[in-house]
C-alpha cells in the first residue's frame, strides 16, 4: 500500500527545461492529501486516547483489587475494599456474541447470496431495503420485543433442551426469565442487516468473467457460487462478521432489558439458559453508582477488557483475511 503524500507523480516529472519542479505543489492535491492524512490521524488518536483513558482510570482500582480480576466471579467494588472479577461477565458477553454470530453469519451470507444471485431484480431491491430497515429499529424496541413478545414463545423449547440435555453445563437449569439464549437470538436479528448488507456488496462485485468461467466449465448455479462468488467475497464476509461482532459485543440496552440479572455472589455457571450481565449491561446497570473513583475504576476496568477483546477479535480476523492475501 502506498502512502498518501499530497503530491502526484506528475510533480516529479521534469518540466520542459529539464528541471524537476521540486517543492511546487498543486493546491488541490495539497488540500485533499492533507485532509485525508488528518482524518486518518484523528481516528488513530481517538482510539489511542480511549485506550489511554481506560488504562489510566482502571489501573489504580486493579491494583487495589482484593480478588483475582480474571478468575473471580465476585463484583463488590466498595471503596476501600474492592472485590471484583470478570469471569462471569466475560463468559456471558462471549456466549451471547458467539450465539448471535452462529445464527447471523450463515443467515446473513445466505441472505446476501439470495439477493445477489437468486432473487429476480424486481424483488432484490425492495427485499434489500427491508433488511436494511432492520438496522434502523432502535435497540430498546428489540429489547422490549425480545422479553415481552419473543421470550414467551421460547419457554417450551428452552424447557425441552433443559430436560433432555440438562446434564451438560451449557444447558443447566434453573431457567431464568430472560436467558442468554433469548438474548443471543435477538442480537442475531440485530446484527443480521450489517452482515447481509456488507456481504451483499462484495458478492455483487464478483466479476461476471469469473462467474461465466465457472458456468462454462459446466458448473451448476450452486457450484458457480462456490467456485467464483464465495471465494471472491470471503474477505468481505469476514470484515462484515467483525463489524457485526463489534455491535454484538457492545450492545447494551437490549441486553440490559432481556437478560435477567443474577443474585450477587452466585458461583460461576456456564449455562445459556440462565441470566447474567455482559460488560456493557453491567456498566449500564450500575451507572448510578459512579460516585467514587476507585469503584468507578472497577467498571472502567471492565470496559478496558471489552476494548481489548474487540482488538483481539479484529486482529484474528485480519490474520484470517491476510493469510491468503496473494490469492485475493
Amino acid at each position: 500500500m502506498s502512502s498518501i503524500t499530497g503530491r502526484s507523480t506528475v510533480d516529479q516529472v521534469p518540466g520542459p527545461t529539464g528541471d524537476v519542479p521540486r517543492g511546487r505543489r498543486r493546491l488541490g492535491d495539497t488540500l485533499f492529501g492533507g485532509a485525508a492524512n488528518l482524518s486518518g490521524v484523528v481516528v488513530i488518536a481517538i482510539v489511542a486516547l480511549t485506550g489511554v483513558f481506560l488504562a489510566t482510570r482502571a489501573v489504580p482500582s486493579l491494583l487495589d483489587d482484593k480478588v483475582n480480576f480474571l478468575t473471580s466471579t465476585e463484583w463488590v467494588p466498595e471503596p476501600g475494599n474492592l472485590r471484583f472479577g470478570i469471569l462471569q461477565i466475560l463468559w456471558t458477553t462471549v456466549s451471547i456474541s458467539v450465539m448471535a454470530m452462529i445464527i447471523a453469519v450463515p443467515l446473513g451470507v445466505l441472505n446476501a447470496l439470495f439477493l445477489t444471485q437468486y432473487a429476480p431484480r424486481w424483488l432484490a431491491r425492495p427485499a434489500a431495503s427491508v433488511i436494511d430497515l432492520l438496522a434502523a429499529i432502535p435497540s430498546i424496541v428489540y429489547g422490549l420485543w425480545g422479553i415481552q413478545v419473543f421470550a414467551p414463545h421460547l419457554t417450551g423449547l428452552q424447557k425441552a433442551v433443559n430436560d433432555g440435555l440438562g446434564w451438560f453445563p451449557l444447558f443447566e437449569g434453573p431457567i431464568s426469565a430472560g436467558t442468554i439464549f433469548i438474548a443471543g437470538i435477538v442480537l442475531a436479528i440485530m446484527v443480521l442487516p450489517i452482515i447481509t448488507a456488507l456481504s451483499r456488496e462484495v458478492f455483487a462485485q464478483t466479476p461476471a468473467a469469473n462467474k461465466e468461467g465457472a458456468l462454462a466449465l459446466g458448473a451448476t448455479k450452486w457450484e458457480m457460487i462456490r467456485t467464483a462468488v464465495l471465494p471472491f467475497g470471503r474477505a468481505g464476509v469476514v470484515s462484515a462478521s467483525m463489524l457485526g461482532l463489534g455491535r454484538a459485543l457492545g450492545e447494551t440496552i437490549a441486553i440490559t432489558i432481556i437478560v435477567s440479572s443474577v443474585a450477587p455472589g452466585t458461583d460461576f455457571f456456564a449455562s445459556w439458559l440462565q441470566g447474567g450481565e455482559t460488560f456493557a449491561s453491567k456498566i449500564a446497570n450500575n451507572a448510578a453508582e459512579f460516585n467514587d473513583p476507585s469503584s468507578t475504576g472497577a467498571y472502567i476496568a471492565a470496559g478496558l477488557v471489552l476494548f481489548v477483546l474487540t482488538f483481539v477479535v479484529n486482529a484474528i480476523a485480519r490474520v484470517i483475511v491476510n493469510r491468503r492475501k496473494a490469492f485475493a
Partner: protein
Amino acid sequence: MAKRIDVKDLNVYYGNFKAVEDVSMTVEPRSVTAFIGPSGCGKSTFLRTLNRMHEVIPGGRVEGSVMLDEEDLYSAKVDPVSVRRTVGMVFQRPNPFPTMSIFDNVAAGLRLNGVKNRKVVTETVEKSLRGANLWNEVKDRLDKPGAGLSGGQQQRLCIARAIAVQPEVMLMDEPCSALDPISTLAIEDLIVSLKDEFTIVIVTHNMQQAARVSDRTAFFNLAATGKPGRLIEIDDTATIFSNPVQKATEDYISGRFG
C-alpha cells in the same frame, strides 16, 4: 472426441430484441472454424448459443435448433450444465479464478465433475498444461496464484482449464484480443495443435488470424444498427479470402468497411 455441430434456422434474442437472425451452418469435427465480422454483428452472441451460455444473460433465448451429432442441445430434456461440460469455452479476457492456485484452476472443472482421485487429477492437470503449452513455464509454481501469470499465460491457463474436462467442442471468443503479438502467436499455434482432438470455433476481429488458423471462415454482418446480425456466407477459408461469393464479404476482408 470431437463432434459435428449442425445449426438450423437459429434466431437469437435478448428479451424482445432479435440479435441474430436465421443462421444455418455445419461445423465439421476436428476442424477450426473462424467467425469474422464487424462489431455488433452477433458473432459472439451466436457463439454463446453453441454451449447455452447465451441464456445466462437475463432475457437470453433462442429459436431453432443446434445439433451436436445426434443430440439437440435445446431439447427440453437437455440440461444446460451438461452441454457446457461437453462444449468448453475460452473468453476474451483471461479469467482464471483469482482465489485459486494454478493447479486448482486447471483442476476446477475436474472437481466439478466429481473426480476425486488425486492421481487422476494430478495427471490430468499436467496433461492439460502440457496440452496448453504452459507446463514448462509453471511446473515449479503450481501452488502459486493463477492471477500472478502474464496475460498470455493466463489465457493458456484458461485453455488448459477448458481442455482438462475433455470437451468435444471448444469455443473461443476473441481469445487473443487482450494479448500481445508473441502471446497471440503462442495461442494460435496451440489452436492448430488442438484441432487434432477437438472441434474448434473461434471468434476473431483479426482477419490474418482467421486466415492463419482456420479451415473454414464464416462472415457475419448486420444491415444497420438495431437490425439483427446475419450469417452472410461460410466457406473454406482460402475461398473466403480469395474469391468470396458475396460482395459484402469481399468489401469487409479487403478493408473497404468494418
